[in-house]
């Protein structure tokens, strides 16, 4: 491999890499605004100027191809002076907006101003006034004064979203961003520009002014909006999710996520429709009861049916751990083979960027861990048919809303003698359920999802339930979480009395006389890993933050069998 020297360090690089890329791979950070690893090089911000031996002038690291034996200095006198100068130019017309800017705290301009600027302005003239608060599209707001004209947003629309909508207009210090005439920026990936904008020029209309970044904790998790399973960070303050941002994972979602995932997959977590503690239907009404009472009731009523009258429906929204126990519960405890989960396919959602037509995060995982009919068992459609023929009288439904999916089913389900439901929120199915167990959402539990591609990925709790203590569970904690007391209004966030499905199942099983000895989701996963070929030899550490991809050959064999 060819080598270059950066700051005296010998570094190997791949042919064709630019200096900035080679440096990045070696863990050396060269300041940059307009360069982005997933976008084309534009080279207009000039902050990445570095000194290269034998070159007459400083060169920009983002577009200079590294060559064998090049000697690069990123901290030399000349480079630092150049950076200072670039910062000074950038700040000439930049407003003193940090106090009202959402980007403050995660702003590149702010960071570099601390690192590379003299800290004082020599500019006494009037700054250029531009338009602030311009909605570029329904989900993105633009502030002309803050823009440093790096063109990242333009390149994103052109190259990633493949939907050119943005462009520069005007020249010199009047230059600004706008949409093409007659266009709005409403592509399904538009909000990624908020993340890549190095300053606060583009803001998320949904999150605008909700919180400062340093008040929130970030938890690494997975989007549950479709089978892609984009890697995300869940940002929480006072036990409430305030925003999701994409997390880099080159083999899944790169730096991006879709607007649907970003906006519509977390609000139910803190919604008022959340189910708090188990409920039993008494005289037509769902009544709040304790866990023990609900378990006892479910146990005695399930036992009154013969094995063939019971069907169990797992969930592609639940984790592998949840589904694994659901499958074992059905087969070992209830002794039924009528076991399946519901597929939520929406071809109109799919595109060739990230979105998949399978709108659930874990249908492959559910299938792999055993949520499928056994030899003589019924699949989902046959179960529904059997219910309408009253051959199946009891249904155990996990984390899914059957009726929402298909309203006709409502009349069919009404024929059931017993409907037990695990659900996070009230929905049409819980409206007719006899026993409702409150399930933790994906943001409240540990577990794994398997995406359409066979990528096993971890989710982690970001929001605490009633039983969970942030510190004891090792959850991400912001400063407010660490120091809040129960008398501080900023630490009194709502906590729901909900449990992850696997815990509900193991609780119910032990009441029914079958003991699962699991205390943590990790222990369930250990069993999965030892029992199911695709998961062999895996544990949470191996999966890590970037996931683990099941070999296609293994996957194929397992699904076919």
């Amino acid at each position: 491999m060819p080598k270059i020297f950066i700051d005296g360090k010998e570094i190997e690089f791949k042919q064709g890499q630019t200096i900035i890329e080679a440096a990045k791979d070696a863990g050396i950070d060269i300041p940059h605004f307009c360069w982005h690893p997933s976008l084309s090089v534009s080279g207009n911000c000039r902050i990445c100027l570095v000194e290269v031996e034998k070159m007459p002038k400083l060169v920009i690291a983002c577009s200079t191809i590294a060559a064998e034996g090049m000697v690069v200095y990123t901290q030399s006198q000349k480079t630092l002076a150049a950076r200072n100068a670039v910062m000074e130019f950038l700040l000439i017309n930049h407003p003193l907006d940090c106090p009202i800017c959402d980007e403050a705290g995660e702003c590149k301009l702010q960071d570099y101003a601390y690192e590379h600027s003299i800290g004082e302005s020599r500019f006494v003239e009037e700054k250029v006034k531009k338009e602030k608060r311009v909605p570029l599209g329904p989900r993105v707001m633009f502030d002309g004064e803050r823009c440093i004209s790096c063109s990242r947003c333009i390149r994103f629309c052109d190259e990633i979203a493949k939907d050119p909508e943005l462009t520069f207009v005007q020249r010199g210090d009047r230059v600004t961003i706008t949409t093409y005439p007659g266009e709005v920026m409403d592509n399904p990936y538009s909000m990624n520009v908020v993340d890549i904008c190095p300053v606060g020029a583009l803001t998320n209309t949904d999150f605008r002014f909700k919180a400062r970044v340093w008040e929130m904790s970030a938890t690494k998790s997975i989007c549950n909006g479709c089978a892609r399973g984009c890697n995300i960070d869940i940002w929480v303050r006072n036990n409430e999710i305030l925003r999701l941002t994409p997390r880099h994972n080159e083999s899944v979602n790169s730096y991006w996520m879709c607007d649907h995932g970003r906006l519509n997959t977390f609000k139910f977590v803190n919604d008022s429709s959340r189910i708090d503690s188990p409920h039993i239907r008494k005289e037509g009404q769902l009544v709040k009861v304790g866990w023990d009472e609900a378990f006892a009731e479910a146990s005695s009523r399930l036992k009154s049916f013969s094995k063939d009258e019971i069907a169990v429906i797992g969930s592609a929204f639940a984790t592998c751990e949840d589904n694994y126990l659901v499958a074992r519960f059905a087969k070992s405890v209830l002794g039924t083979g009528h076991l399946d989960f519901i597929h939520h396919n929406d071809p109109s959602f799919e595109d060739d960027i990230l979105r998949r037509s399978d709108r659930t995060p874990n249908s492959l995982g559910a299938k792999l861990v055993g949520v499928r009919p056994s030899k003589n068992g019924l699949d989902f459609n046959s179960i529904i048919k059997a219910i309408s023929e009253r051959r199946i009288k009891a249904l155990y439904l996990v984390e899914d809303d059957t009726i929402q999916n298909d309203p006709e089913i409502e009349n069919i389900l009404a024929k059931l003698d017993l409907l037990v439901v695990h659900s996070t929120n009230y929905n049409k199915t819980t409206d007719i359920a006899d026993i409702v167990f409150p399930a933790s959402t994906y943001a409240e539990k540990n577990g794994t999802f398997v995406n359409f591609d066979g990528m096993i990925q971890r989710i982690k709790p970001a929001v605490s339930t009633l039983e969970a203590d942030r510190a004891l569970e090792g959850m991400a904690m912001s400063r407010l979480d660490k120091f809040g007391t129960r008398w501080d209004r900023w630490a009194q966030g709502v906590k729901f009395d909900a449990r992850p499905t696997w815990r509900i199942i193991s609780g119910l099983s032990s009441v029914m006389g079958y003991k699962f000895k699991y205390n943590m989701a990790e222990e369930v996963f250990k069993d999965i890993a030892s029992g199911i070929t695709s998961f062999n030899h895996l544990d949470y550490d191996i999966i890590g933050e970037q996931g683990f991809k099941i070999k296609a050959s293994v996957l194929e064999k397992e699904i076919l069998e």
Partner: protein
Amino acid sequence: MAEKKRLKDLSIWQKIYIPEIFKGLALTFKNMLKPKFTMEYPEEKFIPPASYRGRPVLVQEENGEERCVACGLCSRVCPALAIEVQAAETEREKERYPERFEINMIRCIFCGFCEEVCPEEAIVMSKDYELAFTNRQEAIYGKDKLLVPVSQLQDRIEFLRNYK
């Protein structure tokens, strides 16, 4: 090198102790006859100088609006985590304002950091030291109690401009 005289090398008179006792007694007796400077509080109030750090308040402009833009810096810098700011959007020029601004006066230690960090000169230490509550909830001051017209805070603002 000459021996240094140490404090604990007492003279013989000091060692006998009795004369020293009388010196002390004389001193206290003299003080008994001196004028007193007790301030009889509820009737007679201490009016602090501009440098005094009483409870932090929010500056209210003449038009009734607060200066605060809800940047949350005071909340971040507050060593006692006394301040909670919830921002929201407004139509005003400065886009954001504090929808809720609460200072927990039980937590506050009157350090003045909030005042020092505020980029808008929106939170200043007042001269108000009369703080008493009968329960924890009462001690959380909302915007209603925090907003004080700028005219009443001129003293402090001038002080800050001169010395900050």
